[in-house]
């Protein structure tokens, strides 16, 4: 029954998928609370410039895109805070600029570049050992940083003035959150692709919100749903021979619909009793 475990590419996809889904789920709780869900799309699309540059120059795409996405995240942050540009405008500006640079860079590339499609739409077959180790190593930095600075990020998320008055320098933790989100988004693009990655940042939180009673349970449920969506999506994509990224996202959407119906049923039951 678990024949997919015989294939090294599936093992790599499952390992990287579980690891990334934990990070995306956790970061997603902050992203959703701060109402900045659009940032996932912005950074992922803008990172096309980094991927295109790496492809053109023969560099490693993921580390190149991680560096570029971190720079984009910092620019978005400063545009939001230091200019009169709103968050969605700053993100849209960087999204379109990054994509335009990427498209122009790719126009210089001679010949067909099949791997590029895997960055756009995700393809688990292209996650090699180097990618897996890149994901585990770079992602571990985020996984270590998050619990250390969790309380401060949470405080500045919920009550920026209160956290400032408690002595916290909010900008440090805001930037940490932006850059961490950028890094994890880039790590996940081979799994789900530039086009679809922001869904994994938002859907698990949207499902968890329906059932959680505290932020702690919200975070735990989001991570559980995130891992569940990625695992089921990957297994379905294997058995149904469908593109992994789109299958993962649609698994999330299906779970969201089921969860919504279930939460409605629970509410009706509680009203009756």
């Amino acid at each position, binding site marked *: 029954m678990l024949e997919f475990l015989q294939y090294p590419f599936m093992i790599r996809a499952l390992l990287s998928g579980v690891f990334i889904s934990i990070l995306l789920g956790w970061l997603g709780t902050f992203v959703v609370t701060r*109402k900045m869900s659009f940032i996932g799309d912005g950074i992922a699309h803008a990172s096309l410039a980094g991927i295109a540059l790496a492809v053109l120059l023969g560099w490693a795409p993921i580390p190149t895109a991680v560096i570029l996405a971190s720079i984009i995240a910092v620019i978005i942050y400063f545009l939001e805070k230091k200019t009169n540009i709103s968050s969605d405008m700053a993100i849209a500006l960087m999204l379109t600029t990054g994509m335009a640079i990427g498209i122009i860079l790719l126009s210089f590339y001679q010949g067909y570049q099949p791997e590029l499609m895997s960055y756009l739409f995700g393809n688990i077959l292209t996650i090699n050992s180097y990618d897996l180790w890149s994901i585990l190593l770079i992602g571990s930095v985020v996984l270590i940083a998050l619990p250390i600075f969790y309380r401060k990020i949470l405080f500045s998320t*919920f009550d920026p003035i*209160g956290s400032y*008055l*408690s002595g916290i320098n909010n900008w440090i933790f805001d930037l940490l959150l932006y850059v961490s989100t950028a890094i994890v988004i880039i790590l996940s693009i081979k799994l789900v692709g530039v086009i679809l990655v922001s869904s994994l940042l938002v859907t698990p939180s949207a499902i968890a*919100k329906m059932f959680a*009673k505290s*932020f702690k349970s919200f975070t735990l449920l989001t991570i559980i749903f995130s891992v569940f969506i990625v695992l089921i999506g990957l297994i379905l994509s294997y058995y149904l021979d469908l593109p992994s990224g789109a299958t993962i996202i649609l698994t999330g959407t299906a779970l969201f619909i089921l969860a919504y119906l279930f939460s409605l049923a629970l509410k009706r039951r509680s009203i009756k009793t």
Partner: protein
Amino acid sequence: MLIEVKNLSYKFNDFTALENVSFEIEKGDIVAIIGPNGSGKTTLLQNIIGVLSPTTGTITIDGEKPRDVRKKIGYVPQKFEFDRTIPISVHEFMSLEKCGKKGHDEKNIIEALREVGLEDVEEKQLGHLSGGQFQRVMIARALLHEKEILIFDEPSTGIDLVGEKTIYDLIKKINEDRGTTCLIVSHELNIVNKYTKKVVCINKQMVCYGSPEIVITPETLQKLYGSGTGLYHPHNHIH
């Protein structure tokens, strides 16, 4: 003297929000800031807590820059800008600020909530509280962290008359029992008259400063709000 505002001016680009404002607040005072919409009240508060820096002039708290002593200040905003559907319990919210051994102690949180008249809300979601209850949670958090100065930005906005009285009675009690210096931005002139010891009247510039019964006169109100405004007293007299 605790808070000293000296010749404060604040400009956003070419727009002058505050010009040459000066006043002093003693430790343990309960002071209201009044003025019409757009008069610079919130800008003044933001300068006092150190989020904004004066263009010219100075603000000191205990002789130091506000930013350097900001841990002494508790701030209760007019409304709380967060998605109310995000689940965070009152207990979690109260525990956000780390403060040594005392802050996160279950007993102290319950005690602080009881002090503001809120019992059994600890496990409730913050987003499920009413406006008045939320204001009291913010006050309880300030009590938990033993803030020396409490700043309220229009604390009764969107709250009914009973809730308004509860909040102002609570502010007065904290001021009297703990000696906490309280600074309140308010539009409610009758409340200001009843609860505060001093009032700062601003309309971009300083209009008056002193005890409310002396400085809130028809002339002051005319300067602040234009004609047709006054204090309501029983017997339907407009002063």
